[in-house]
């Protein structure tokens, strides 16, 4: 536990570790929003009307 407690705490890049969860959440939200938008576009797309049936 003691080793874990001091892990990276004294390094300048420890600041980046505070940023990482923000980036992960932003990326996750970005992907989710994009997928929602795509799904919404698919739902809104007009369905192809049935064409004339080909004569046998």
């Amino acid at each position: 536990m003691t080793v874990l407690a001091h892990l990276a705490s004294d390094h300048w890049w420890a600041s980046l570790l505070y940023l990482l969860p923000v980036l992960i959440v932003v990326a996750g939200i970005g992907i989710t929003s994009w997928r929602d938008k795509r799904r919404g576009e698919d739902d809104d797309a007009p369905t192809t009307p049935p064409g004339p049936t080909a004569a046998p």
Partner: protein
Amino acid sequence: MSARSRLAALTGAAWLIGLCLAPEASAHGIVGVQDLPIPRWLFGWAATIVLVVSFVALAVLWPKPKLQASRERRLLPVPRFLDPVCGALGVFAFGFVVYAGLAGTEVPAANLAPTAIYVTAWVGVVFVALLFGDVWAAFSPWRALGRFGGWVAQRLAGDGLPEPMAYPERVGRWPAAIGLVAFAWVELVWTRGDEPMVLAVLAVAYAVVMLVGMSLYGVDAWTRNADAFGVYFGLFARISPLRWERGALFVRPPLAGLPSLDAGTGTLAVLLAAIGITTFDGFSEGPIWTDVAPELTDLFAGLGFSQAVALQITFTFGLLLVTGLVAGLFWLGINGMKTVSTQYDAHRLAREFAHTLVPIAAAYIVAHYFSLLAYQGQAMGYLLSNPLGDALGPGDGGLLGTAQWTIDYGWVGANAIWYVQVGALVIGHVAGLILAHDRAIALYGSAREATRSQYWMLAVMVAFTSLGLWLLSAANA
């Protein structure tokens, strides 16, 4: 990409770069060596997980608005004579502090005025408001004097007393926002801001401005909009489960007072200023600022300003910049919301969701100033007995017999302070998420649409939490 979107993206980028570049910053949390079981940055990750899980839980378990309608009940009657008694006590305390500032020593730490204003009033009253509601309104010295003046005028003039003018709606709470930033400027920027006599003169000047305003627009309208301290403490009091009204005390669920907040013109500015001021207070003691500030000061000095003026220009610039970045972060969340649904414009959304910033501002204040209040607040014990900072003989207890007291730095440890700070930040931001989710359901009608609209507000909450923990962790390093 529109100009506004570009501005929002730039603000976000600037904030992220600032967070990346700084190895540490400082705040009022310097309390000694901690012995934590996990690294401090891991608390940031844990806080993020708590926020994301809360967001998902809200989406699943909170399908209807629960906080929009007022749910309070009368707890007990409050004797009417308490209001003037509290007001008289407030006026006496104000006079006492002003007298100490004018007649006492010019050594800030030995004079009652700086600690009474910057610690007891500015920080302590926020904690009191969070727990017990808008107690400040009862003790506010200028409000008490204004009401007393109105009562006397009514007695003398009777029906001939003219009605106060209507308070201009387009001005709203902007005077309070400007007053807050001005107070922060005196505290954090002005080199003479800790001189007891200067503080006493400024306190009297502020009271005079308040009295003039109240005489023109009425006591209630003025204190509700233009009194920086009345507005500031009143916002935090809405978190409290207690609400005081003339003649009665009401009880309600915590946070239930916030959805009814009238976020009219300037309210958002007050809240963003409150968060920005606290953030700059922490940031200005960190290495980024201590590296950059001398360079900027030299730059301004090169333009012909004296070194002292150049330093103050630099800090003013820093205060406004940090407040602007905080505002930009909130606008990112609002504009993100707009991308999900175009039903409402950004101004309407900012107004509808302004109240969600109140618990965040409270969290920042509790986290940043808890240790200041816990330690420096004790100084009031000996300063009340020796308000002027006179040289006392050994064993001389002064006015109340407590002049020989000292600050006990051992009553709360470094770890306890850290856990209070982390707890405050997490609880404050979860409270912000709850309020935002509840408002979104009321606004958009369906839980699904509400949850989608809050994606970017979740990102803003995570960003504010990480920023707060980063500032504090560096202060406790």
